[in-house]
C-alpha cells in the first residue's frame, strides 16, 4: 500500500528527474578502465594517480582501499601500501556485522548498494600482501603478526563456511610457513607447510594449482629437521626427490625468495536480460555478475645469479579462486535477484493501479507505474565490484646462494619459452639471511574491461 500512496503523490517532473539521475548511475567497474590501461602500459605510478582521483561512495570504501593499497605496492611504496591495506582490514572488521538497512536496499535497488567487504579470498589476500610488504622491507616480526592473523582468519572461515570451495588458502599457508621458517620456529613452519600441502592437494581439482616444486623441498627439509623420519621418507618417495639441502646447510647460505604477481584478476561483468512481460505491459530485468578470465601469458620466472639459478612454480591462481567462489555463491545471488525483480514489479503494479475513477488520476497513475517500472529496470545492476588489481596468479621461486653480493636476473618466460621481461637487481646476502623480492608484471596486451 505504501508504494501506491507514494506513487500517487510523486509529481511527474520529479519522477522524470529521478530517471535521468538513475540512468547516469554507473557501476564501479566502469570507472577503472583507464587505471587498467595505465597498468598495461607499465605505469603503475600513473595508474595510482588516476585511481586516487576516484571518489568512492561509502559502500565502496573498502574496495577503494584494497585497490589503492595494491597500486601503491606496485609503485614500490610499501609503507603507504601497508597503511592503506591496514585501513581496508579495519574497514572489513567494522563492516562484517549485518546491516538491515543495506539488506533492505539490496532487495529494493541492487546488490551493489551493500558495503563491499570482499570475498573470503580477497580478505585473506589483504593479510598476505601486508605480510609481503613487511618481508620486502626486512620486517620479519611484523610479517609474523600478519601470518598469525591469516591463521586466525582461515580458522574463522573454516568454522563459518566449512563447505565453501575456498576454506583454505594454500598460498597464504605457504607464505606463513616461509615466515615461521625465517623466524626459525621450525614446528610452526612444519605445520604451515603441511597445511599448504594438504590445501594444494585437496583444491587441485577446483583451482588447478599443483603442489609447488619449492614446497616439496621445504616439506622434506623441515620434516628432517623435526626428526619426522617417516614423514620425510614419505615425501621423498612421493615427490621422487633424493637430495635437498638440510636446514643447517641452508643456514650457512643466504636465500632469495622471489614472488611474481602476474596479470590482473578476472573481470567481473554484468550479464543481464530485459524482457517485456506482455501480460502486464511492464519490463522485467534481471542482472547477474559473471567473471571473465584474462589471458595469462606467463609460464614461469627464472631467477639466476652466478653460479646458480631457479625456476618459479605457480603457488596461487586468483583467477580460478575468484571464478569458483562466485560460482558457489551464484544460487544465493540469483535468488536475491529474482526476489528483487518480484518486489520491483509489485511496486510498479501497485502504482499503476492506484488511480481513482476519474480519467485524470488513472492517467497519472499509469505514468507513475511506468516511471517506477523504468526506475526498477534501470537500477537493476549486478554487483560487479571486485579487487581487480589483484594479480591473476602468483608464482614463487627460492634460490639459495653462498653469502656475497649478487646481480640477480629475473626473467619472465612465456609459454613458448620467449622472454617476456627481464630485469636485474642487486642483492647483498649474508649468512642465514633471506631476502624477499617481488615483481608485479602486467602484460602489455592486457585485456582491459570494455
Amino acid at each position, binding site marked *: 500500500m505504501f508504494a501506491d*500512496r507514494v506513487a500517487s*503523490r510523486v509529481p511527474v517532473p520529479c519522477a522524470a528527474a529521478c530517471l535521468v539521475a538513475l540512468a547516469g548511475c554507473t557501476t564501479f567497474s566502469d570507472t577503472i578502465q583507464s587505471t587498467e590501461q595505465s597498468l598495461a602500459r607499465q605505469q603503475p605510478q600513473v595508474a595510482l594517480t588516476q585511481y586516487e582521483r576516484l571518489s568512492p561512495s561509502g559502500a565502496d570504501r573498502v574496495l577503494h582501499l584494497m585497490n589503492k593499497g595494491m597500486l601503491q605496492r606496485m609503485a614500490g611504496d610499501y609503507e603507504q601500501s601497508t597503511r592503506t591495506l591496514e585501513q581496508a582490514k579495519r574497514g572489513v*572488521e*567494522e*563492516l*562484517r*556485522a*549485518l*546491516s*538491515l*538497512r543495506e539488506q533492505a536496499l539490496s532487495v529494493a535497488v541492487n546488490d551493489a548498494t551493500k558495503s563491499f567487504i570482499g570475498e573470503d579470498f580477497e580478505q585473506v589476500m589483504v593479510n598476505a600482501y601486508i605480510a609481503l610488504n613487511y618481508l620486502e622491507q626486512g620486517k620479519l*616480526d*611484523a610479517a*609474523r*603478526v600478519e601470518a*598469525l*592473523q591469516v*591463521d*586466525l582468519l582461515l*580458522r*574463522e572461515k573454516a*568454522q*563459518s563456511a566449512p563447505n565453501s570451495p575456498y576454506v583454505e588458502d594454500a598460498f597464504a599457508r605457504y607464505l606463513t610457513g616461509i615466515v615461521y621458517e625465517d623466524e626459525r620456529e621450525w614446528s610452526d613452519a612444519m605445520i604451515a607447510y603441511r597445511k599448504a600441502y594438504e590445501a594444494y592437494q585437496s583444491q587441485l581439482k577446483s583451482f588447478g594449482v599443483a603442489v609447488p616444486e619449492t614446497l616439496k623441498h621445504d616439506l622434506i627439509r623441515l620434516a628432517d629437521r623435526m626428526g619426522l623420519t617417516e614423514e620425510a621418507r614419505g615425501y621423498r618417495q612421493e615427490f621422487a626427490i633424493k637430495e635437498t639441502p638440510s636446514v643447517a646447510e641452508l643456514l650457512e647460505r643466504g636465500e632469495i625468495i622471489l614472488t611474481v604477481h602476474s596479470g590482473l584478476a578476472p573481470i567481473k561483468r554484468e550479464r543481464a536480460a530485459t524482457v517485456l512481460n506482455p501480460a502486464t505491459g511492464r519490463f522485467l530485468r534481471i542482472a547477474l555478475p559473471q567473471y571473465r578470465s584474462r589471458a595469462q601469458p606467463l609460464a614461469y620466472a627464472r631467477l639466476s645469479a652466478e653460479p646458480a639459478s631457479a625456476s618459479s612454480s605457480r603457488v596461487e591462481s586468483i583467477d580460478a579462486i575468484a571464478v569458483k567462489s562466485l560460482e558457489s555463491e551464484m544460487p544465493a545471488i540469483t535468488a536475491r535477484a529474482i526476489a528483487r525483480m518480484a518486489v520491483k514489479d509489485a511496486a510498479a503494479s501497485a502504482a499503476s493501479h492506484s488511480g481513482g475513477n476519474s480519467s485524470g488520476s488513472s492517467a497519472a497513475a499509469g505514468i507513475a507505474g511506468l516511471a517506477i517500472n523504468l526506475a526498477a529496470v534501470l537500477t537493476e545492476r549486478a554487483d560487479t565490484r571486485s579487487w581487480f588489481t589483484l594479480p591473476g596468479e602468483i608464482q614463487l621461486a627460492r634460490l639459495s646462494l653462498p653469502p656475497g653480493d649478487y646481480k640477480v636476473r629475473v626473467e619472465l618466460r612465456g609459454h613458448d619459452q620467449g622472454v617476456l621481461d627481464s630485469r636485474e637487481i642487486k642483492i647483498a646476502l649474508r649468512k642465514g639471511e633471506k631476502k624477499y623480492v617481488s615483481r608485479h608484471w602486467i602484460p602489455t596486451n592486457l585485456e582491459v574491461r570494455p
Partner: protein
Amino acid sequence: MSGVRSLRIGLALLALVAASGCATKVERLDESQAVDLSGAWNDTDSRLVSQEMIQDSLSRAWLQEFRGRPGQARPAVIVGEVRNMSHEHINTATFTLEMERALINSGKVDFVAAKTERRDIRDERKDQDLNARADTRNAMGKELGADFMLTGTINTIVDPSGDTQVRFYQVNLTLISLADNRKVWVGQKDIRKLVTRSKLRF
C-alpha cells in the same frame, strides 16, 4: 494531509540528527580510565603492563643483591628488544619507556642509551671534539657500560568462536646479566579479554 505533515516533521528531525553528527567531537579522558573500543591492544593494556613490571622489578632480590656487591651502587640497564610475537601490531616502546622512566626516577637504577640513541650521542661527541671549547668537551671512551639488558616478548593466544573470541596476552620481560648471561629477574603480566563482535550495524 496529516500524513504528509508528519512525514515532513519526521524528515526535518532526521536531517537534524544527521547534521548533529557532522562536527568533530573531542572528549578528554583521564589516563587511568579504561576505554576499550575494538578489543585490540590499547593504552590500558600498556599501562597495566608497565605498572606491574615497575612494581615487581623494584621489589625483587636482584636489586638488593647487586647493591650488596663491593663497589657497586646502582645497576646500569640497557633496553634491548621486546619482540612482538603476538597476532597484533603492538608498539612495545610505550611500556618499556614508562618502565625506564619509573626506574630512573626511583633513583635505584641507571639506564644507558640504547643502540640507536648511542649513535647520535657519539656523533655529537665527535662534533664536540672539533667544535666545542676545550673545557666543555666530553671525551670519547668514557661511556658507562651496562650491567643488565632488558629484553622481552609479547605472546598471544586467541580462541575465536563465531562472533566471540577470548584473547590472552602474555608479556614477559627479562633482565639478563651482561657479565654472565644470568637471568636475574623475569616479570610477567597476563591479560585476558573477551571480545564480542556486534552482529548488527546501521
